[in-house]
């Protein structure tokens, strides 16, 4: 299959401007359209390793980012996310096209794919087991995720755990990882080889930059992973890095709290999440220094974390 990087730049631009660039990310094919320069360059850089979908493959979502027309264009340009002709969100300032595309695609998967049970969580894999870091935005899960990626963990997603309710396995949906504010500098230091997209300032979430997912994670996007660890990340200034075991019921409640569509799956949803906590080591990770937090998780994955024991 062709990768986005294999397309001549002219063709990439024509696809984005015209019929849509069909990119496969794990189980989902996105048909992306945009003529906004920041979006085109963002897609070209950060989706370079992603496979283009075959011609006869159907797209799950037809998304795009377009400049809003009308009088607005004379006083300060704005961009809108478009899902198949509808504009589900308010327009944003014109420089935010690429983050808007990413947020919009997250919204499609978390809200418009009831075939999956979706959780707000970063997911990585090591030794064939998935580590789930369920947490709301701003709790540092993307930062941890970017750091672990750099230490050889396979990225499944920095934002969305896509669970197949019938198997309780997590389906990878490797896409650019979103970093905010201080995390951007932190990861530049921690992992100097990371490929960063443009930093977009003054968004609702502050400064935002996306980093390119590792080629291996993208290549192995069809390998689902069975959960092995559920860790609730808790960033606390000045706290020594520490993993504390958490009861299975607590862990289950945390998964439910961070689920986007738990309610619609009824009993099957409960059983899938129960299977996840049953087969996982569940902990709370308190940390301040990123390096120490990462080391705790490394020890956990090696089965050697001093404080880890089954509850």
């Amino acid at each position: 299959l062709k990768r986005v990087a294999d397309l001549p730049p002219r063709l990439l631009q024509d696809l984005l401007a015209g019929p849509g660039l069909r990119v496969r990310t794990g189980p989902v094919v996105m048909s992306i359209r945009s003529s906004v320069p920041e979006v085109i360059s963002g897609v070209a850089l950060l989706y370079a390793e992603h496979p283009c979908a075959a011609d006869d493959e159907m797209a799950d979502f037809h998304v795009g980012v377009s400049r809003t027309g009308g009088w607005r264009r004379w006083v300060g340009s704005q961009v809108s996310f478009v899902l198949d002709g509808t504009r589900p969100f308010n327009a944003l300032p014109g420089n935010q096209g690429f983050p808007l595309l990413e947020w919009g695609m997250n919204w499609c998967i978390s809200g418009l794919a009831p075939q999956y049970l979706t959780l707000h969580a970063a997911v990585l894999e090591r030794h064939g087991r998935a580590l789930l870091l369920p947490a709301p935005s701003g709790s540092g899960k993307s930062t941890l995720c970017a750091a672990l990626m750099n230490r050889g963990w396979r990225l499944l997603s920095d934002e969305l755990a896509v669970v197949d309710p019938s198997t309780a396995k997590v389906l990878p949906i490797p896409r650019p990882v979103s970093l905010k504010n201080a995390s951007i500098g932190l990861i530049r230091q921690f992992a100097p080889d990371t490929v960063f997209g443009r930093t977009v300032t003054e968004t609702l979430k502050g400064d935002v930059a996306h980093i390119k997912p590792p080629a291996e994670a993208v290549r192995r996007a069809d390998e689902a992973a069975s959960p092995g660890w559920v860790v609730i990340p808790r960033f606390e200034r000045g706290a020594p890095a520490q993993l504390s075991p958490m009861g299975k019921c607590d862990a289950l409640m945390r998964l439910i709290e961070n689920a986007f569509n738990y309610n619609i799956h009824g009993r099957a949803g409960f059983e899938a999440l129960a299977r996840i906590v049953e087969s996982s080591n569940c902990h709370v990770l308190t940390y301040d220094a990123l390096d120490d937090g990462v080391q705790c998780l490394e020890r956990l994955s090696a089965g050697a974390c001093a404080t880890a024991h089954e509850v």
Partner: protein
Amino acid sequence: MQDLVVHVLSDPAYVLKLRSGDWELLLRQARHAALMGRVASIVARSNAMDDAPETAQRHLKGALVLAEAHRREAMREVAYLREALCGNGCPIVLLKGAAYAAASLPPAEGRTFSDTDILVPRSALAAVESRLAQKGWASTHLDPYDQRYYREWMHELPPMEHIRRRTVVDVHHNIAPPVSRLKIDAGLLIDNACAVPSMPGVSVLAPEDMVLHAMVHLFQNEDTSRALRDLSDIDLLLRHFASKGSFWSALIQRAQELHLSRVLHYGLRFAHEVFSTPIDAKTLELAGRAAAPWPLDGWMHRLWRHALSSQHPDVMTPQAHTALVLLFLRGHWLRMPPPMLARHLLHKGLVHWRDRNKAA
């Protein structure tokens, strides 16, 4: 570009004739028209699921999961409402989605529900509101203008939201705003309502009234984005109730009693044209006597035919966009007398402008 979703709804066997390339467009149109669940149930019933590409199957099966969750939640809300109201001597009439689900009618299948709509006598409004408040439903739209808008001009209380479950109930005392062109005696609807056997205290509208309400909802609405879904509900109700021999004549007569003959004309004509609902020529002719005079009837026909599509970008022409704007204006025009409308739009415009500037 064809409106595949219309083909599939009017002829379920059509799903067996779809080529693999058609599924993507079908699903896009179905999602756009809020008909994904209905298409999914047609595909499942026609045993065509295996013919669909894997991606389409996943979305269709997901839509069935979602529709079932909505049905379950709607029934749970009805149970809560019964507990809050019916035990205290306030019987309720369910409307729209909740009614279809409670009475196990065909439109409930594969349908998604938003708010729960109930109808109570106007004289019972205060008691119903205070009982709901005691059980955790709180009024929304607390702005004094909005409160007045609902309480004085509309046919419903401001939506009430449950503080824990975040579910919303719309308490109606009529099926059209009292200030609108339609003057409906809601007492007639409540008197004729049919009890739901498994739910003491809960009724649904009688078949003819249910159909007429669905038509009022569709053709008096300024928001036409769900028009095709609403017409599909009407199509399914008509096909279901038609098995009772006297249904068509009763429907015509009831429309006259409720002064809804023109709405009935639109409903029957468009269901027949768009979804090929089997309606005999005599009924269509009788209903057609209430048509608007020439040339208005022709204009309305053209406007509504544009709105009664999936409205997916691929099927939208410039004329169709214009039609939606005109129907939007018409909906407002019907909703209240012009001076009141002018005031309302001015107020809403100012609020919108103020909020925008606040946000900026």
